[in-house]
């Protein structure tokens, strides 16, 4: 789970935006903040219930006593980050919780949904099934590192143009997967796109628009 105290990386553009607009409406930022806190309470309540039932599971993906964190360096989106994590911390958790890069989503945490897809050395992988310590010295790209400043990556533009999402939860994973897909030896048909994108599940079922977005975005260079 992400730490609500840690602001997402790369929100510099918003700066210290006021939390209430002139017309009294809540900004997106404040809404997100509230939603995250609400979600945390909900999850904490749920987890404490199950903790009682199971006799003491912790409200975190890390159970049992901790071992000493180890210092590691990760190269994420062209920047080197020094951090300290326990060896059992997944790349996904390190990105989200240590680096505040919450664009990569945690869906299943078991390799089944693709929401956590990132690129390692330009190839798409599920960041929930690899450990952060294993990815030292590798070039990691997350959804936050795809755009060039204010200019969106062509695949991001294509997802916008084709409305390739509904709730958006699977979208960062879909886009990262689509970027990886575009570099792999697949054929040109929609069947190739569907098969090549099979590792990304969309609960909302936005598949027809996702296929259109990938079809359109795949040929375009970043």
């Amino acid at each position: 789970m992400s730490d609500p105290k840690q602001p997402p990386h790369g929100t510099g553009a918003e700066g210290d935006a006021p939390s209430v607009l002139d017309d009294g409406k809540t900004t997106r930022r404040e809404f997100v903040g509230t939603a995250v806190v609400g979600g945390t309470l909900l999850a904490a309540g749920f987890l404490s219930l199950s903790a009682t039932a199971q006799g003491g599971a912790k409200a975190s993906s890390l159970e049992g006593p901790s071992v000493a964190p180890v210092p590691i360096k990760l190269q994420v989106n062209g920047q080197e980050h020094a951090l300290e994590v326990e060896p059992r911390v997944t790349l996904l958790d390190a990105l989200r919780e240590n680096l505040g890069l919450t664009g990569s989503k945690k869906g299943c945490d078991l390799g089944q949904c693709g929401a956590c897809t990132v690129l390692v050395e330009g190839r798409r992988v599920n960041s929930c099934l690899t450990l952060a310590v294993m990815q030292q010295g590798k070039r990691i790209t997350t959804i936050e590192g795809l755009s060039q400043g204010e200019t969106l990556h062509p695949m991001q533009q294509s997802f916008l143009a084709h409305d390739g999402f509904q709730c958006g939860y699977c979208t960062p994973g879909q886009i990262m997967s689509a970027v990886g897909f575009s570099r792999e030896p697949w054929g040109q048909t929609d069947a190739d796109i569907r098969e090549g994108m099979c590792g990304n599940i969309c609960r909302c079922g936005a598949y027809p628009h996702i296929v259109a977005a990938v079809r359109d975005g795949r040929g375009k260079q970043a």
Partner: protein
Amino acid sequence: MRPIDYTAAQDVRGALQKLAARPLESAPIGGGTNLVDLMKIHVQNPALLVDINGLPLAEIQEVEGGLRIGALVRNSDLANHPLVRERYPVLSEALLSGASPQLRNMATVGGNILQRTRCAYFRDISQPCNKREPGSGCGALEGFNRMHAVLGTSDKCIAANPSDMSVALAALDATVHVSGPKGERTVAFGDFHLLPGSTPERETVLKPGELITHVSLPASRFAARSRYLKVRDRASYAFALASAAVAIELEGKTIKDARVALGGVGTKPWRSAEAEKALMGQPADEVHFKAAAAAALKSAKPRTHNAFKVELARRTLVRVLALAAGLA
């Protein structure tokens, strides 16, 4: 996930030493797609992970007309290698039918061969399972066993081996190369996985502290005419209900040589000598494909929810034989 220690090895010797230092609680990690998954749900709980990704075992080399495939070659790289596509299409097809592109970019050859069953009782530590906890019973025998095996089962375990790649390797007469504290050895692929019998916790002949270093494929006259067909609950990204890997050599319309292996229905990657015998020297036609399919499933022991697999596997085999023979 429980706490772990981690160390990375740079060569085979170093990895073997690190594994041997804590023999009962260490495990090598390749892609991690099976091990990290099972550590999260507490089914596997190694205290020390030895990262073998730095070992120089990621090459595919042509050797005496065959291939030598390093244990760390990623599933996607193996599937897309030109020599594999050209000479062993069944292997490429099997790999590309497994998991997702992301997982195939991570998964290694060694890890794929050693991946554990997807039996839901095995994966749920609140359930009895002889494989996970010897002697605790088997939740699947009288439980929901729709995904389970019909071939090679015992009264202790009916879990299906989930690997697609291994079905192709079984058909292709592959050899597994192993390194351990006592040196190197080779194991014929058919001997590598064990039947559950009364010890379902023992799945392969690999001993603790040993590493798979390579897999080799012999040159073959029949592998170029080889196909893989997988049937599952959805069009992709699902484990096999039934699958079949076949390779045949034709002389005119007569089958001169054949290899047949089944997936999704066996407790191990299931090479069928019976089906091969039924094909050898026979015309490549539907009558003989059906005879081979009947022979392959003759010893099947269906349970409450998986009886459909017997007919499904037969039809899968008939269909893929027709594909390999160029008749479909």
